[in-house]
Structure formats: structure tokens, C-alpha cells
């Protein structure tokens, strides 16, 4: 009996060794370990054995059974592993084929610039104010120290609808409206982005519609050095920390003193080149201390309050920053133009 069991064991292990697939392995399991298998049969004949022999043979039978089962399991794992590998091999794909496109659109370049400016000034505690694009003559001109008959408000330069209504020529009326709204005693710290309109023939550098971002700070004890500090912070963040600014005198009816701000030229670092026309500086924006007439018209006492204002053109900034060479690109909406600035 003992011999028989050992014989069965080596026979089974041999078969397991050469089993080629899971089915064959299953057959071996049934053949040797099943209820009708030879080991079970051997165990059934144990009754004939002596009392001393019985546990020995029983033990042996169990060992044989386990060794076969374990061999089957090992073999099974191996076969399964091979089968999986084969399957995965077959599932392999060409990873260099293009993916299913996810089409993502993007903001208009001017929107990107304006939002960047907004975020910079929000960081400095500014609000964003908006106002109507069709303005009254009063807010567009008169409240800004441009009385009727002033040469700077020529009919030829503005799109009038009636004598009293026109398309705003700058976003400055939003400043006048904001001051009025604050009622002459609250502090103001805001910027106002928006579309503006002028009677210009569209060409590479002129557009009858364009955008502006203006800013206004009014409070007690606002100084010109504050204007310089705020513009410097803006310029460094917008154009790079290595850029310098300079202010030089200019003229706007609604500010006094009035200045223009230049930044040092990126191309030549201030040495002078063709981009900056040899001056080393590029004009970016106009600014100044709010004219006392403007403060007064809005109800602020110019003896108590002072302020500064500034205004810039996102188109110009875009043209400088990205080298856009024709202002009409901003309004033609050529997809090949729009796509270039998705990453901005």
C-alpha cells in the first residue's frame, strides 16, 4: 500500500509537470484527488490494515495528497500567469497614435491682459468698476474739466448720438460716476476696464473701438509719490521685475500735474534700439494727480482730498508684450490669431 501511494505520487507529479494547460491540470486534479481517485481508493482499503499500520499509511496518504495538490496549485499559478501575459501581449496598442482630441477654447488676448491687470490691482486693494458705453456729455467731458467749447472735445473726434449723448471716448467717466456715487467723502480705490470709441479710421495703429483700463485713487493725503509707487508695482508685475519706470510731464485736462509713464525697453534694456526709437524707454500710460476741478465737480473738497488717476490701453500693452503688429487683429477674430494666445 505504501508502495502504491508512492507510485501514485510520482506518477501524478510527473503528469503535473507536463500538463500544458489549465484543463489538463484540472483533469489531473480530478483523476488523483477526486472522490473516485486512486488515493481515496487506497484509503478505503485501510480497514484491512493493522492497527499499527493504519496511522502510518493515513499520514502517508495525506502527505501524498498534499504534495500533489500543492504541485497542481503551483503549476496552475504558473499557467495562469502565462495566460495573462499572453493576453496582455495581444492587447498591446500603438501608443504613438494621436489621442481623442479634447477641444479647449480660450480667452481673447485683450481679456487676458485686462484680467491680468485687474488681478494685479485687486491685489493692491482696488475694486473693479464698470460704466455705460453710451455716456452723457456731462460725464464724458464736463465732469472731467472739459467744458463745452474745449478744443479737446471736438465733434470730429467722438461718435455723438445726440448733442448730449455719445459713445464714451475714454473710461474716465466711470471715475466721475464712482466719485459721485461715493458722495464726496468716501475714499475711492478702483480701476475701470472697458470698451471706448473714437472717430478714427481703422488702420494698423488706429481702431474706432478699443479698450482702456483707467484707475483712480482718492483719499485724504494722497501723494504723487503714491502714484509713482503704485505704477512701479504694476509695471514690475506686468512687464517684469527688471524693468524700470520713469515719469515725465505731460498734459491731460483732468489731471494736474499730468505725467506719462515709460518703462525701460525690454529689447535693449535701456541702451536704445529701434523698438524704443533709441531712447531706451517705451511709453506705457498716462497719469496724474486728479485736477481740483474734477474733485470739486464730484463733490470732494480739494483742500481735504487729493487723488491720482491713470489710464492705459490693453491693445498697446498687448502689442508691446507680444509684438502684435496691427491693432485690427484684435477685432478681426481670425482663429489663427486667437489660438496663438490661449496660453497667455
Amino acid at each position, binding site marked *: 500500500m505504501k508502495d502504491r501511494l508512492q507510485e501514485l505520487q510520482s506518477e501524478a507529479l510527473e503528469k503535473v509537470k507536463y500538463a500544458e494547460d489549465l484543463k489538463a491540470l484540472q483533469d489531473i486534479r480530478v483523476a488523483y484527488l477526486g472522490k473516485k481517485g486512486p488515493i481515496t481508493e487506497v484509503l478505503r482499503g485501510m480497514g484491512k490494515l493493522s492497527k499499527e499500520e493504519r496511522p502510518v499509511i493515513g499520514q502517508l496518504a495525506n502527505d501524498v495528497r498534499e504534495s500533489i495538490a500543492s504541485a497542481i496549485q503551483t503549476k496552475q499559478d504558473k499557467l495562469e500567469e502565462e495566460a495573462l501575459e499572453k493576453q496582455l501581449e495581444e492587447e498591446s496598442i500603438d501608443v504613438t497614435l494621436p489621442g481623442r482630441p479634447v477641444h479647449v477654447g480660450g480667452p481673447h488676448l485683450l481679456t487676458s491682459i485686462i484680467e491680468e491687470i485687474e488681478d494685479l490691482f485687486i491685489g493692491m486693494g482696488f475694486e473693479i468698476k464698470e460704466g455705460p458705453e453710451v455716456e452723457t456729455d456731462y460725464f464724458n467731458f464736463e465732469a472731467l474739466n472739459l467744458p463745452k467749447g474745449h478744443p479737446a472735445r471736438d465733434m470730429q473726434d467722438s461718435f455723438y448720438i445726440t448733442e448730449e449723448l455719445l459713445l464714451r471716448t475714454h473710461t474716465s467717466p466711470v471715475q466721475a460716476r464712482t466719485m459721485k456715487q461715493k458722495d464726496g467723502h468716501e475714499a475711492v480705490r478702483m480701476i475701470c476696464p472697458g470698451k471706448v470709441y473714437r472717430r478714427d479710421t481703422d488702420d494698423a495703429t488706429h481702431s474706432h473701438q478699443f479698450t482702456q483700463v483707467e484707475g483712480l485713487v482718492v483719499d485724504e493725503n494722497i501723494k504723487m509719490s503714491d502714484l509713482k509707487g503704485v505704477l512701479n508695482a504694476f509695471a514690475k508685475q506686468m512687464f517684469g521685475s527688471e524693468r524700470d519706470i520713469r515719469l515725465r510731464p505731460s*498734459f491731460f485736462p483732468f489731471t494736474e500735474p499730468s505725467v506719462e509713464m515709460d518703462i525701460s525697453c525690454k529689447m535693449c534694456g535701456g541702451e536704445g534700439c529701434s523698438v524704443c526709437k533709441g531712447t531706451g524707454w517705451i511709453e506705457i500710460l498716462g497719469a496724474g494727480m486728479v*485736477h481740483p476741478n474734477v474733485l470739486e465737480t464730484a463733490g470732494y473738497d480739494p483742500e481735504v482730498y487729493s487723488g491720482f488717476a491713470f489710464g492705459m490701453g490693453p491693445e498697446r500693452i498687448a502689442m508691446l508684450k507680444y509684438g502684435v503688429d496691427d491693432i485690427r487683429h484684435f477685432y478681426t477674430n481670425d482663429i489663427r490669431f486667437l489660438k496663438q494666445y490661449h496660453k497667455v
Partner: protein
Amino acid sequence: MLVSLNWLKQYVDIEDQTPEELAELITKTGIEVESVEPIAEKLNDVVVGHVLSCEQHPNADKLNLCQVDVGEETLQIICGAPNIAADQKVAVAKPGAVLPGNFKIKKAKLRGVESNGMICSLQELGVDEKDVPKEFVDGIFVFQDEVEVGENAIELLNLDDIIIELGLTPNRADCLSMLGVAYEVAAILDQPFTPQEEILHPVQEKASDYISVHVEDPDLNPYYGAFIVKEVKIGPSPLWMRNRLIAAGVRPINNVVDITNYVLLEYGQPLHAFDLDRFGTDEVVVRRAKENETITTLDEQKRNLKPDHLVITNGKQPTAIAGVMGGADSEVHEGTSNILLEAAYFQPVAVRTASKDHGLRSEASTRFEKGVDPNRVVRAGMKACELLEKYANGKVLDGVVEFDQLAREPKKVEITSSHINERLGTSIPDEEIADILRRLQFGYEQKGEMFTVTVPTRRGDVELFEDMLEEVARIYGYDNLPYTLPGGASQAGGLTLHQQLKRKVKNYLQGAGLDETITYSLTNAERVSQLVSREVKKQAAAPVSLAMPMSEEHSHLRLSILPELLASLSYNVARKQTDLAYYELGTVFISEEEQVTVQPKEQLRLSGALTGNWLVHPWQQEKKAVDFFVVKGLVEGMADLLDLKLTYKQAKLPDMHPGRTAEVYLGEKVIGFIGQVHPKLQNDLDLKDTYVFDLNAEELFAHYQKEEAFQAIPKYPSISRDIALVVEEQSAAGEIAETILHAGAPLVKDVRIFDVYQGEHLEEGKKSIAFNLLYMDPNRTLKDKEVEEAHEKILTAVKEKHQAELRG
């Protein structure tokens, strides 16, 4: 304003700066320098030559063979100029000279005869043709003054000058004169400058014996001065004066005209010289023009005058439009000998109106329009008389005949150093402020830190404390201001909810694949009425149009963004860019009045236009053209984002596909529409199938509520059931889903349509719609029985409302 540095040097010492350094200083301190250019390119070896003889070239009719003494030698030069003649003094470029355009002068043979140099025209020496005196335009330049043979002609002709062009802002009219520029530069460089006195040697005869002056409109003409200069000899003005005029971009004409122009450039005061003998009468009457009055100006144009125009008359008819242009009849000409010289102050507005109406902007009108210095009017007249004495052989009569109500008192402005420093953020000491005032040549009285400044009348722009603030700051130097940030109560900056929502919606649409556009607000008469949403149309009485449009293309304010968006698509398609998905968030302008009197309402609308393919993925054979449901999906996604419930009703709208258009409702209110553009319009625009949406963004944003409270995640399982209903083919699936949701409330949380079928196994004219219903109670597990009951209720409701049968 063109500033000749050689001229400026006569007033102020500028030798320590290069022209570029000077330009930089002027720009930083007050006036933007637009360019720094030499009057001519670098020249050398051009000298004065004396034409000893001039004979015809033996082999050429039109050439002359000249022997020219250039000092050290006599050169044989061939010259083709028609005005060459023996005994002239001319400018000779010797062999080795280089003329503008890198033109090298060499010895050469012309038609077999040797030529050793060139006799030059002013153009050849680099002078702009428009500035060349007329008599020399078509030939060589001939010296009319005493010059030495062999002298450096480049210096004599001022061709080594450098011109600085100032870009003057309207407030700095003082720098429309060389004296004004001299004051400015002297202040910047801290150099002394005192203008010369005018020196006259009048004869005994009195001007008042020849002329009288009457001004009828002192408001417009507070000062009129008439000088009489007799027996002038018209001829060329001296070379130095011509040089300065040319440098300033003014063509020399004759001594009398040149002198008035020269004084205008030097003093900033326009003058006018009449031929006294042709003036007509012995009185000057200044008045407003009469209706229907005319004058022929010296450009030979007959001009119609209006009472808005101020005119100089001889008591009978106009002889000049005040400050703008003189009349042809009394013009100074070659035979003139007696001159009536006008030095006047005309109010800016009078001159501006006339110069605008007649389209005449001259050096004179520009200065009057900006206001001249009241204290320089008479002095300028005297200066011109002085020059007429010297350079036109004139006899200046005694006295100036004048009408004078002109205010000449300088303004006084009080400043304190503490106020200045407070506003600038500086700590400039009193002495430095005093020093700045001295440099500016502003008078002042100082009491402690208080300065009472007397502003010279040349600086009409300085009136207020703030103007003085600017003067002090700019001379102190903006570079010297510190960098500070505004103090005061801090304010939290940020976006309003409305502004946040704008960004949210833009980000959503961009993420969904749409590109943002910005189109023009001004459109044409046809487009303005296209694709306007019904609720906008209802409110707008008429489109808003411009009073004076520049072109028909941009004459009306838009009522819809879509026409411009479609035009953009069309533009791209024409350039072979065919798959496009655009959106724009922008304003439309709604006026409730036929005739606009108040500001139109400005409504923010969100519009989109899509054409071509929405998705292309060729190698997996996927390709999806834009269709109604792509656009609807975009709008639905946005509604989800804003947590708004929008409904869609089939609609027939102009310019839209009648079967593929829906109006969009928020509650009971129409807020826009979506659908396909009418194929006819598509055709007109060369577009393939194009789908659009147009929504009132204000309504969307107004109903948005920021979700604040936390909503528990459901703990209990939901139950899902499908039903297929057979309905008439015109039935709207959305409405049935709505009925199901209502009837199944509160257990039915969601209804989804997952199949629509028509065809085999269904009766003609019917369709089957399959719905997936989601039952749920957030507080407990539902029992089958409850779901059954709800299901029954739903079936009854859809049968009643939509005659829907459960599909067997």
C-alpha cells in the same frame, strides 16, 4: 515745433550737452522730444566758389563749362543748372566731398571735358525741397550776401545744424516760440537767459497820421496795434534769417514776409504786413464779418464769411480774416514800399472758429488758438520794425496806433513748501523751492515757507496751486520722487459677484471648447435688425444710430452680438478655417424711445456661434458636425453650472431655421434662443450649417444663488426604473419628462431620456420615448410598493396629458 540748436545757442549755453542729452533732459523735464535730426546728412568739402567764367559746353547744349575760384585753386566744373552765370558766388562740392545719399564727388569727364567738382543746389546739400526758396528750387543756390571765396559753405548755409522736434501738449503754447524754448532750456540747465531789447530808430513822422484803429468787438480783439514802415525795399532776407527759417521748416520768400515769419518763430506772436498803399483807406476796423460777406484770401480762394468770424477791414470791406489769413488785395508784393504792420491779440475762440470753418490751420492760427503772451504783442511788432529798418531799408514811423483793452497783469499763485511736499511726498527745503522759481524766472515773495509767485504771462497755463506743483516737481525731477503706496484705511479689493460670474461663464465656455471673440459694437443698418432675441426686440423701439457715422458699416449700435459673430465665422471660413466655435460676452444697446433722448439700456448678452465639425478624430472614425444638441448641451451645462433651470420651447424666429430653433425660458420669461441659422442667411454668408445661442446674461446672473449650505450625500440607495412610452410624433419629449417629474414627486428625483424610436413595430405617426426614472428618499430605503404606486400615478398622468401608452 522745430527747434534749431544753432539758433537756440544764440540765447542759452547748451555746449555742455550733446543734442541727445539735451533732448533727454527736455523730455524728462517737460516736453516730449519727438526727434533729434541733423538738418542734412554729414557733409564735407563744400565751399563758397566764385564763378569766374561760364561758357557753353563744346559738346552739349544744356551744359555749361565754368571756371570757379574756390580760394586755393580754380576748378573747372561742368554745370547743367539753368540759373548758372558768371560772377555768381555758389556752393561748390570739391572732389572728395560726400553729399547726402553717400554721393561721392570725384573728378570726371562729361562729354569729353573734365569736370572737377559740382556746383550744388540746396536740395543736393540735403535741404528739404519744400523749404528751398522758390527761385532756387529748379537750379543751383546762389549766395546773395557778402561771403568770402573758399569759406565753408556748410556752416554758412547752417547745414551743420541739428533740429529737435518738440511734441507740444496743448498747455505748453509758450514753447511755440524760440524765446519760450530758451526760457525752458535755461531753467532745465540752470543757465542765465535774458532776451534782447528791441531797438528802434523811428523817424519823426507819426504813424497816427496814416492810420486809425477801431475795434468793434473788444471781447474778441482786446488789442490791435498798427505800425507804419515806409519805403521798404523788397528783396531777399539775410542769409542767417533764411537759414533759421529753413531750419524751422518755413520757406523764405522775401525780406518783409520773412521778417514777420521770423518774429512769429522767435516771439510766438503772429504779425501781418499789409501793403499800406493797397489797403484802400486810412482806417483799420476790426469787427465780426457780416452775413454773406466774402473775402479773397492770399491763396486766391474766395471765402464766405459768417458773423462768427472776426475780420480786419478797411472800414468798407474785409482785408484779412483775423489771425488766420490776409486778403489778396492788400498783400505785400514785389513793388510794395509802404507797410501797415499788424500786431494784435485775438481771442483763441475767434481764431479757432474761423480756421476750422475755412480749413486753414497756419503757424499763425495755431498760436492764436492757444493764446499768445499779452506782454509780447507790442514787443513783437517792435522787433519786426527793427528788422525792417535793418534788412528792408524801411523807415519806421513814430508810435504805434492802437486799440488797447488787453489785460497784461501777471497772475499770482500762493504756495507753501509744506503743501508742496505733502502733495508730492517729498521734503524739498524752502531754499530749493526758491531756487526752482529762480530758474524758471518766476517772480516771488517769500514769507517763511509761503511763496507768493508772480507767474510770467508767457506761461498762461500756470494758474492754480496744482500748476505750480507741477512746475516745482518737474524741475525738481520726477526721478527724485520716492516710491510710496497710498496710506489710509485699507480696502479689500475684489470682484463683485457679477464680475465673478462673468469670469465663471467665460471659463466654462472656454473649457467646453469655445474661443472668445471681441467684435465691434457698431454695426450697419441691415445687421442691426438681424437675429435679435424676441424680448430685446420687444423693448427696443428703434435701433440707436450715430448722428454722424464715419461709414455705413459702423453706423448703428448693435441689438445682438450674433450678426458680428457670424461675420467673423464667415471671415474665417473664407480663409479655409472651417471648424469654429465662438462666443462673446458683450453689451447690446436697447433704447425704448424712437428718438433717443436718454441713455439706452445696456444689456450684457452671452452669444455663441458654431459651424463645421465639433469633433474630428479620424483614425478612430469619429467625426461629429455641430448640431442643435451640441449647442443645447453647452447651454444646459452652463445652466447646471449656475444651478438654473432653463426650459426650451420650439419657436419660429426670423433668420432662424423654422424647425430647429427653440426659445429659452427662465421661469416664464424668454431670455434668448438657440438653434440653427436659416439656410438662406447661411448661404448669404457662405457658411455651412451654423448653430447659435443668444442669452440675456443679466437674467442668468441675477438668478444665480451661491450655494452655501452643505447638502448631505445620500445614504440610502436609489431605485432605477425604465419606461417606454408611445406618443404622437409631434409630442415634446421635454414636456413629458416634466410631467413625469411632477407626477412622481417627491420620490422621482431625476428623469432621463435614453432612447427615441420611430419606425418598424410602431404605428405610423407615433414615436416611442424611453425614460429612465430615479426614485429616492434621502431619509430611508424605499419599499417596492411605494415605487409601484408612484409609477402607476406617473403612467396615469402621462396618459391624461400626452395620450402616452406604455409600450408593450
